[in-house]
């Protein structure tokens, strides 16, 4: 051991700066391809989106171009459609993430306390996590659709209830599908937090006479706060971008559009790149604000975060 250390020190004495310079260069070289690939489709396009958003660009009328300043933003921000979509997006985000947190916590506790069948539970909850969102959306759509579904044949539900014919019932089904698909991911993040809690704390609390509810609120929740906040941040941003489920279920009919659907409709369906890009930039700003709010107001330490899927 000391011989090895001696050799290391000897080697270092020869060329400290050479070696660390080489290491630094290698580090940059190894990271460069990934960094370039990540910037290629984020930094450059968002810059380009800003440029597009201050122009009048409608692919149906290629000759009518030109700089229009902030007119596109004004058009978006003064349209009632944008605000309806913001409201829908916020409702879907807040309701689905709240339910996911409660259900995810229950699921994490169940997985943590597994007496038997641990593998079975983990395997089965990974199915919603892994399943294609479009497939999940179709499964839930067909279940509630009066033409094909079984839901309307359940007791207490009117046989002819048109779930997708009404704004709020449609949003309800959209939220249910989102909750089903993403609760397992929330549960796994929370489970990771749960496993870091020292079991001795619970034993000590039991000795002191704390019941299960007290132990959960006095020990589990406070110690899991960092894990919960990080999970909430990622799920909130993810839910705010909701697109696939709504596209499959209603395509935004009955006032169920989210802001992402609005952006898609402007850019792809109406080929109005200028207006659509203004929507895109506004969504980007909203995401920045949400992340900022989590970091500043709730004190999420980003070093503890990690991207999900």
């Amino acid at each position, binding site marked *: 051991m000391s011989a*090895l250390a001696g050799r*290391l020190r000897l080697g270092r004495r020869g060329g400290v700066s050479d070696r*660390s310079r080489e*290491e*630094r260069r*290698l*580090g940059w070289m*190894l*990271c460069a391809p*990934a960094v370039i690939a*990540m910037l290629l*489709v984020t930094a450059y*396009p968002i810059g*380009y*989106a800003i440029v*597009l958003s201050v122009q009048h660009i409608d692919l149906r009328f290629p000759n009518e171009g030109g700089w229009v300043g902030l007119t596109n933003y004004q058009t978006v921000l003064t349209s009632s459609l944008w605000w309806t979509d913001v409201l829908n997006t916020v409702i879907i985000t807040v309701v689905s993430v709240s339910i996911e947190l409660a259900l995810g916590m229950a699921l994490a506790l169940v997985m943590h306390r597994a*007496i038997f069948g641990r*593998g*079975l*539970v983990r395997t*089965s909850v990974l*199915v*919603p996590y*892994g399943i*294609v*969102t*479009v*497939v999940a959306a*179709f*499964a839930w759509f*067909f279940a509630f659709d009066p*033409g*094909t579904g079984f839901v309307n044949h359940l007791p207490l539900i009117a046989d002819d209830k048109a779930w997708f014919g009404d704004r709020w019932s449609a949003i309800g089904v959209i939220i249910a599908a989102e909750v*089903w698909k993403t609760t*397992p*991911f929330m549960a*796994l*993040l929370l*489970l990771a*937090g749960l496993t870091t809690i020292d079991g001795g704390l619970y034993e000590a609390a039991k000795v002191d006479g704390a019941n299960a509810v007290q132990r959960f609120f006095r020990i589990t929740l406070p110690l899991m706060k960092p894990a919960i906040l*990080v999970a909430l941040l990622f799920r909130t*941003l993810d839910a705010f*971008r909701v697109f*696939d489920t709504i596209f499959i279920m209603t395509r935004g009919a009955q006032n169920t559009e989210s*802001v992402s659907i609005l*952006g*898609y409709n402007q*850019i*792809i369906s109406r080929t109005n*790149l200028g207006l659509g890009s203004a929507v*895109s930039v506004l*969504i980007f700003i909203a*995401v920045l604000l949400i992340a900022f709010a989590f970091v500043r107001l709730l004190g999420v330490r*980003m*070093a*503890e975060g*990690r*991207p*999900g*899927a």
Partner: protein
Amino acid sequence: MRRGTREYGAWSIGLLLVLVFALLPVVWIISLSLKTPTTVGDGRFLPAGGQWTLDNYKVLFEGGFDNSPFIHPLINSIAIALIATAIAIVLAAFAAYAIARLNFPGKGLILGGALAIAMFPAISTIGPLFDMWRSIGLYDTYLGLIIPYLTFSLPLAIYTLVAFYREIPWDLEQAAQVDGATPFQAFRRVILPLAAPGTFTAAILVFIFCWNDFLFAITLTSSNNARTVPAALAFFTGESQFTAPTGNIAAAAVIVTIPIIIFVLFFQRRIVAGLTAGAVKG
């Protein structure tokens, strides 16, 4: 043990609830895919006895390679997800190795940037990409989808790999370097074999991510040249304008779920480890 019976009872109920919650919609879509055109609207959760068929699956592959509505998208999905996963894992492995093992300024910036990209709204890029891809000929091509998949799966891949690579015994690499191996040789000969299991896990997560994508698939493709299954599903039409394609969509949905079920069945432990690795530093 006295606590035994009650606890077993409560756990069994919990287990059952979780299984129903997780698997009910999957059983339902499989059931729907087996229904006949006359029973598809009967509202039963499972096909009535003797009233099931594999026709919905057969129709997907009818007409062979050129006329089937499903074969092209399926091949596209598999090829695009595999290629994107392979490239993403190679790029992420280089970066993660550097971040976990080497000392260089800018590490924190790269990790922070990756985290920011994980939060980046993909919808904000589709306008520019739609425009750029059309002018440089990437619209409706494999590469046109592979590039954004790389971008958005790299943060996931890098974070997962960094978490795994940090667990690898560092001394072995140092020993190899002391014995005269260059940093790159040390990486290839010593670290790579140790890193293979974690790398495989990251590859599964990235594959699931690419396989799942819908937004880029519908905005950056317009035909069977590059359209993947999720996008093709959204534009499925019935055999005639009078038949709803419900059964066929359900059958196609079941087929694209098969790889996910296989991953989950065989690599459950790895996927959970991958998703929770480094999630919270205790």
